[in-house]
Structure formats: C-alpha cells, structure tokens
C-alpha cells in the first residue's frame, strides 16, 4: 500500500481553460492509494511547493504525482520539493497535461477526459515505483569553445579568467570572425578593430587558453563532463613553432589566392596572413593558390625563410582533448544573392553585398577605407536595399535583425566618406536596441532618404551607361520610383555557416529548418541544447547583434562553468542495466542504442551498459529478446501498469 498525493496545476489559464481542474483533482481522490488530491493556480510557485511539502509530512505521502506542464520544464523543481521533504526524488511523477492536453485541444470535454486517462495511468504506475540512487562521475575541468569570432573569443576569455583551461578551436587561420571585417559598429560608431583586436591579443597571451587555429573538430565521443573531442590541425605548410612572423615569405610569394577577408574584392598571396592584425601573426599556405603545389616548382618562401619554417611535407594531424563542456559559437554566412536575378548581384559591378561594403569602409580593406566602385570612381548616388532574402517566404522567413541598423551605419559612413545621395529602401525599420532609435533619428537628420518599399528590381540604365536603375514602389505615396544610382548595397539574409550541419551532427544538436541551432528552451534555457553539456552562443543560434552576442557568450561561459566547476557530477539514475544471467549475447542492444552506451564484454560474453552514456530511453530493453535488460524507472511492470490505467478510458 502506497500513499499517493496528487497535485493538479492550473498553470494560470494555460491548463484551466481546457481542463476542468477541480473535477480532475476530485477524480484523482477516488483512485486507489490516493490519500490527498488538490488543485492550485501555480503549483511551481512557492505556495504551491509548500503545499506539496506540507502534505507529504501531514499525510505521510510516499508517492507524489504532479499534473502540470512538461517534465522538461519542472520535473527538477518538483524533485527538489520531494527531496527536501525527505522522499526519494524518483518517487515524483509528472503528468504532462499542458503540452499534451490543454495546448492541443479547444474542447474542454475531451481535454478533461484525456487528462483523467493520463492521471489514471500515472497513479497505477506510481504505486510500483521504487526509490533509485543517483551515481556520480568525475568531471573534466576544461572547456572547448568552437568558433573564434567575437562570441567564441568572449566566452573563452570569461572562462579562462575564472582559471579554467579553454581550447579555442577556429577553422580559419586567424580568430576575429566577421567583427574583424567591420570598420565601425552601430550605434556608437566605435572602431571595431579598437574594441576587438585587444581581445584577440588577450586570447593569444592568456595562459589558460590553448588557441587552435586552422583546426576543425572531426569526432566527438563521450558525454557531459567527459567529452573526448578529436581535432584536426589542417596542414599549414608552415611550422609555427619555428616561424618568427617576419612575413618575408608573404612578400616574395608569386601565388595569387582570393582574399576571403576582403570578401573576394582583392587577391592575396598563396602564403598569407588574412589581415595585418591577424592572430596568430603566422602565415599558412593556401594549396590551391600555391605555385609549388600547382606546378611543382617555386619554393620561393622556403628560400627567404631564415627560420626554416616552411614545410611542404606537412600533413594534417589529429589530436584528442578531454573537456567537460563545449560552447559552440560558429556564427554565420550571408546568403548568396546571385540567384535573386532581379537584384543583379554578380551581373552589374555596382551591386555589392553588405560584407563587401564593410571592407570598403575599412582602412585595412582593399581601398584603404575609401568608398570607390570597382572602376575606381566615387559613387554619386547609392541605394541600400533591405530584407534581401530575409522576411521572404521564397528564401528565409526570419528577420535578420541587424540589417536595418548596419544599413543605417552604412548610410552614415557613405555620407561621411562621399558626397553621394543615399537612399534606404526598407519595409519596416527595426531599431529596438539601446540607443538604436536615437541612431535612426540621427541618420534621418543626416539627410539620408528613406523610401518605404522593398527594392523590386535593379536594371541597367538605358540613358547613362554604367549606371543602374533601382525600381520600387514608395508605398507611402504609391508612386513608382525609378532611381538612377551608381551603387547598390544588398543587405542579405544572415544564415548559419555552411558547415553548421556538420557541427550539428557531431554534437547531436537539433537545428531549425535553416540550420540555426535549437536552444533547449527559447526563454528559460536559450544557451543550452538538448545535448547535455553543449552550449551555444551568438548568431549560430539566430541572427543577433554584437551586444546580444557578447551577452550570450558570457552566459554560455557561465553555463559551462556550472558543469566544470564541480569535481563530480550527478547522473540520472534512470538508466538501463543488464542482468548478465539472462543475457543471450545477441547484441541487439548495441545496435539500437543511439548513445553508444551498451558494449560487449568479451571476457564475460555478455552486454554491459555504460551508465554515464545511457539516457534511459529504454530502446535496448524493448529489443532484448531475453528480457535481460531492465530500464530503471520504466520497468515492464511499471509500464504495463500505466498502460492498464490508460486503457480503462
């Protein structure tokens, strides 16, 4: 005989509007072994929790059922409540009557009836529950940060400053990310390099940070607290231990590659550092552009290198590091606007993508910060087209959030650096950040013209060769605008890095339909993922500006710290175990487990389960022909009892 308490939550009206909660509590009180049943407006609040704790003592309850929201939300909350009241925390059962009932129906009869069925099943199962004991494992104290943009840099520095060791992995040959490409940042117009490069240098100097540039993660094993991550060091063909960063090689190199840093606007050498402030300041060789790799002779760099650092024989190398937590901060690409033929990108030389324009403004860029077109002339009229591929069902439905603001920044810099007339073609101006509306007002007063209408087409000018005509409706007047310009700037959709799908696969992350990583909960766990111990920060989660990115990076660092700050970590006790006496050695369990938890013990000739990897999903137990596997907390008896309870309805 157990003594069960049932607590039905209204969740305000979330549950109460489609389930008759007091009727549900009344129903519960009629079920076997139920000693007390109550309903309350917010069971997760302090009075709700105190009610449960009080009833446990008063009625000597030994099983608690909370009918409320998803266990993902508050299972931990209620486990703490019962634990503090002296019960084993596995004796609390959550019945999800919000996500699985009230939110999926408008019919109060159906809702109430389904809630009763679920509750009935839970009572039947709760009677058979057994207390479980948690296990503890050692935790690796180090953290890996993937992506060396402002998010990764910030997270790495925060963690390193707490004394934790950080591996910062960057696939390019320098850290800095997109922020290093910018000249100014909105809305304060501070110099991007001035605020970023000191941080890049701090990363390089920090004794707790191992900087792994030109590296990619190739394999992830293990679990929260104990990840074993294999990192590929791509061959640089330059021994960075020997290199003294004199850069004589880059001067002599005859090879020509495309400068990724300058968005392809100019060429760079085959042996290169991406930009003068790169970190580290040591070059790599781009095989595809190197004369020696293409033609078999040259080796000029080798001749000029006094340190004998050039090594054409260098191969990719692999190393494995052990970390307790991971922060993924892989950032974004801009969408390729070439397929949007109406805008003429790639067809008309005067059409630029936003990042190209960032480079034009930058004093370290291809034009040394002068705004000139590809033919060297200064533009007389410039159109900035917002929402290119963003807010667009044919491309990307999301708002890219930063385009309105950087388009304003562009307008300001165009006004500052040229005498051109500047036009913004926008749908809605979105300036909700701190100081953003003020910045918007400032740009309006700088006499930038705002045309409320999405740019519809960019065409060649029939009258003035080399110029373009931007066609759009000014929706405020209803007039069709045909604006002659010399320069068109497209503000394209921000999308996840092209290889974000590989990262998602490696770390078992979910993504939305465009490949942005999914957070565990949009409000309460925005930096966590469904993979324990893996956190996300910055634009890889969704488009955001630098202040939000930095805030997320700090948050992710704190989240990671909550794991690695502890020596030991508690594991869920709801794992599977093998009864070796019954195991028939078929190894079905090994084949079906998505987490790689079961393994075959050759010596004993039976399967065993690594409890640290086991998530308790029960798949192995269900395919075990000998019923040798027991899924703790979901034993056959318990599950069958629950089904029986459900079937009564």
């Amino acid at each position, binding site marked *: 005989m157990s003594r069960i308490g049932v607590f039905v939550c209204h969740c305000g009206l979330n549950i109460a509007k489609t389930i008759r909660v007091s009727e549900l509590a009344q129903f519960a009180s009629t079920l076997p072994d139920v000693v007390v049943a109550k309903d309350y407006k917010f069971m997760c609040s302090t009075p709700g929790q105190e009610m449960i704790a009080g009833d446990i003592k008063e009625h000597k309850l030994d099983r608690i059922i909370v009918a409320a929201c998803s266990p993902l939300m508050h299972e931990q909350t209620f486990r703490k409540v019962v634990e503090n009241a002296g019960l084993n925390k596995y004796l609390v059962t959550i019945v999800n009557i919000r996500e699985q009932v009230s939110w999926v129906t408008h019919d109060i009869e159906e809702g109430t009836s389904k809630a009763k069925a679920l509750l009935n099943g839970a009572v039947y199962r709760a009677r058979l529950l057994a207390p479980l004991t948690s296990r503890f494992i050692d935790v690796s104290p180090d953290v890996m940060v993937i992506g060396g943009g402002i998010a990764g840099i910030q997270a790495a520095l925060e963690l390193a400053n707490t004394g934790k060791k950080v591996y910062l992995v960057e696939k390019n040959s320098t850290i800095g990310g997109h922020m290093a490409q910018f000249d100014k940042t909105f809305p304060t117009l501070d110099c991007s390099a001035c605020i970023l490069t000191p941080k890049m240098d701090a990363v390089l100097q920090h004794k707790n940070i191992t900087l792994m540039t030109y590296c990619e993660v190739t394999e992830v094993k293990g679990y929260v607290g104990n990840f074993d991550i294999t990192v590929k060091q791509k061959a640089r063909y330059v021994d960075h231990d020997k290199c003294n960063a004199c850069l004589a090689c880059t001067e002599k190199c005859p090879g020509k590659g495309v400068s990724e840093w300058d968005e392809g606007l100019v060429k760079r050498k085959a042996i290169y550092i991406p930009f003068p402030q790169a970190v580290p300041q040591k070059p790599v060789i781009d095989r595809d552009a190197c004369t020696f790799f293409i033609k078999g002779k040259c080796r000029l760099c080798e001749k000029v290198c006094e340190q004998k650092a050039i090594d054409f024989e260098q191969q990719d190398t692999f190393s494995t590091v052990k970390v307790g937590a991971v922060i993924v901060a892989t950032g974004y690409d801009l969408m390729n606007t070439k397929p949007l033929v109406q805008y003429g990108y790639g067809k008309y030389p005067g059409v630029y993508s936003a990042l190209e324009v960032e480079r034009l403004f930058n004093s370290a860029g291809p034009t040394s910060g002068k705004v000139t077109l590809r033919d060297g002339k200064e533009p007389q009229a410039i159109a900035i087209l917002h929402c290119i591929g963003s807010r667009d069902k*044919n491309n990307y439905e999301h708002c890219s959030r930063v385009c309105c603001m950087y388009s304003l920044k562009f307008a300001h810099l165009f006004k500052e650096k040229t005498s051109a007339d500047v036009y913004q073609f926008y749908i809605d101006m979105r300036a909700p950040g701190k100081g953003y509306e003020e910045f918007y007002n400032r740009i309006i007063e700088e006499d930038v013209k705002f045309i409320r209408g*999405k740019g519809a087409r960019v065409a060649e000018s029939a009258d003035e060769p080399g110029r373009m005509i931007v066609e759009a409706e000014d*929706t405020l007047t209803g007039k069709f605008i045909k604006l002659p310009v010399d320069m068109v700037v497209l503000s394209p959709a921000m999308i996840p890095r092209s290889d974000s799908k590989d990262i998602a696969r490696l770390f078992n992350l979910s993504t939305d339909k465009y490949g942005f990583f999914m957070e565990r909960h949009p409000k309460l766990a925005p930096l966590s993922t469904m993979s324990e111990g893996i956190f996300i920060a910055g634009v890889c989660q969704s488009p955001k500006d630098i202040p939000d990115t930095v805030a997320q990076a700090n948050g992710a660092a704190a989240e990671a710290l909550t794991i690695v700050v502890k020596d030991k970590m508690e594991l869920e006790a709801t794992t599977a175990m093998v009864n070796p006496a019954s195991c028939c050695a078929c190894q079905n369990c090994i084949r079906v487990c998505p987490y790689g938890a079961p393994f075959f013990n050759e010596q004993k000739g039976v399967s065993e389960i690594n409890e640290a990897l086991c998530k308790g999903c029960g798949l192995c137990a269900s395919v075990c022909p000998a019923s040798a596997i027991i899924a703790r907390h979901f034993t056959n008896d318990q599950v069958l009892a629950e089904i029986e309870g459900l079937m009564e309805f």
Partner: protein
Amino acid sequence: MSQTVIPYLEMSQAIVDAGGEALKKCYQCGTCTGTCPWTPITHFNIRKLIRFGQLGIDGIEEYMWGCSTCKFCVDRCPRGVEIIDVVTAIRNVYSGGGMLPQSLRAFVGSLSARGNPWSGDQDKRNDWAKDKYPVYTKDMDYLFFTCCTVCYDPRNIKLAKAAAEVLNLAGLSWGIPSVDVNCCGESVRKVGDLELFERLKQNNLNYFKTNNVDKIVVVSPHCLAAFKKEYGEDYDVMHLSQLIARLIKEGKLTPKKDFGGLKVTYHDPCYLGRHSGVYDAPRDVLKAIPGIDFVEMGRNREQSMCCGGGGGGLWMEKLKGERLSDLRIEEAMATGATVLATSCPYCITMFEDSSRTLNVDEQIKIKDVTELFLESLGVNMDELMAGASDLNFTCKAD
C-alpha cells in the same frame, strides 16, 4: 473631400470568403507594385488594391480591373500571398454587386449563353475543321482540346489547323472534341464569375468522363492551366509545344526546311511560363528548326513580360500608351528579330493587334511556334488556309 474612412471588415471578410484568404498575409512592402508590368504605364496599383481589401474601404473599384494575372508579383512576393486569388475574389464580390465593366459584359454574356467568349454559335465550333479532322472517340489516344479562340478567331484558326496537321504528320491517334464542349473557363474565373466557371468546368468534365478522355493536348496555355490546376482532376494535359519537343527528341518528326537565317525571338506566355513552368519546350522546338537565328529578349523566361491578355484583359479596351503588348512588340523589334514567336492564342491576338496599330505588321510577323514548326516540315501555311475566308469572323470590336 474628406479623407475619413471607417474600415468595413464585413467587405474584407466577404473577399476572404470568396477565396481571398491570402489577403491577410500581406505586409505591404510594395514588391508586387514594383514588379507589376502595369505600374510604369498605368495608375493600377496592386498593393493598394490589397490594402483596400484588407480594410474593406473605398478604392477597390478603381483598381480591381487592372490586373492581367501574369503572376510575376506572386512569384516575387516575400509573404507568399496568392495575389491572383485575391484579385479573383475581389472581382467575384464586386461583380456580384453589378460592377462588371461594359467591355466584359459581352464576354461574360457570350460565355453564359454560347459557351465561348467570341459570340460564336456553339454548333459552329468545329467549322474551322471542315470535317477534315477527326472528332474524338473513346478508342483514340489524344484529345486535342481546341481553345475557343482557335475555333472562332480567323487569325487563330491558322494555329488550330497547324496543330491538327502536326498531329496528323506525327501519326498520332487523336481527335478534336465535339461541339458539346465549351470554353475551359480560365479567363472568366479570373474575371471573378466563379459560378459561371463552375458551370463551364462541369460541362467539360462531363464530356471528358463520357468519352473516357485521358490524354489532352492543348494549344492554349490558359486551357493548360485550367485543366491542370482548376479542374481538380488528374488528366494528362500537355501543351502542344511539349509534345512537339518530345516528337523531335524521339526522332518522330524532323524539321527540314531551312529558314536561311530568319531572326526569331520568343515571348513566354505567362500561363505557359510562370503559371505552368514550361520554358524550354518551345525554345527546343525553335532551336531544332534549321536556319532559325534565335535571339532572346532581355526579359525572358521567369522574368518575361505580360502581353496584357490574361485575366480578362483580352476583352478589355486599353488606351494607347497603356498597352503592354505594344511595349513587348517594341522590345521584340529591338532584338532585330523579324518574327515574334509565341505559344498562346491570346498573346497572338494581342500582338497581331499591336503590330497593326503600331504599323509594324510588315516588319515583324507574329507566329505560333507550332506554325513555324509545321512550315519547317515543308507544309505551306497559305495553302492550308486557302478557303478559310468564308469563316470570317470579327473578334475584337476594333
């Protein structure tokens, strides 16, 4: 005049109920207006039409007849608004209230009384064929569904005959429908008379079902779009240009006559291109004909410009300077082409009209791809048309 209005949401709801549900999605960015071929030359403003529709306020009447349903705006709309559905719904609601323009009354009246838009006698639907071509029977493979325009309009009878000859030369088992069929109804649906469209559709479906029709060949992209998208049945419908392209590819028909460097450009009909996604077949046919110097106009394929004949436009009068077909003729001539080929009887009618009013009908000829193809097989179109003059019949008021 006061500018005060009160939103009349009942009217907005009526538009939604008539199939204009998409109205709600629009965020008024103006992409449609900026894309619309009418914007630069008329005061028609598709965005405003939708805005007025959202609020149910006065102004709808001013814009509701301007759209030729070319679908350019729909393809570009970032919100995925089915703008043509909205236009159709608005026209349905308003023309139900007696607001059909004068020029469309004869069109709707004829369709209602005679089953075709050209005031032709239903019995004379097949007179163009002069019993020379077979009428469809159950044992045949293909029904060549002759568009009303190719049955009754003397210029387009040429297209009907050319099509029939090609089908014969291909050795296919085919027939034209009996005079029991009527217009596919595509245009009247876009004019907003959904009830009449249903009637026309049901009548055609009855014929198809009674005669076990399975494969349909059409020369009008409007029939193609109607049968494929609006009839709700799964017929194997094909535009003749697609069939010809296939016959050439399979080596069943080979164009022989050399045109000796004839410069030809091609106009994508909206209902074949954007509405049905057929861009390559007609080009493949033209490119297979020896001695044709094929040139593209600047706006082609997905970006093609409308002739103005869709959505009832063929039956509406437009002022000089407000005709898309005039602009398109000028664009075609700018390529140096002496033949403007297309593959739609509506486009042919619009362009023939424009080439005459622009006085360039000697400099540029309007031809269907089928006609050029038949000539390249060695058939003389003039001989084919001999004796057709007794069918003389005027399509347009002017």
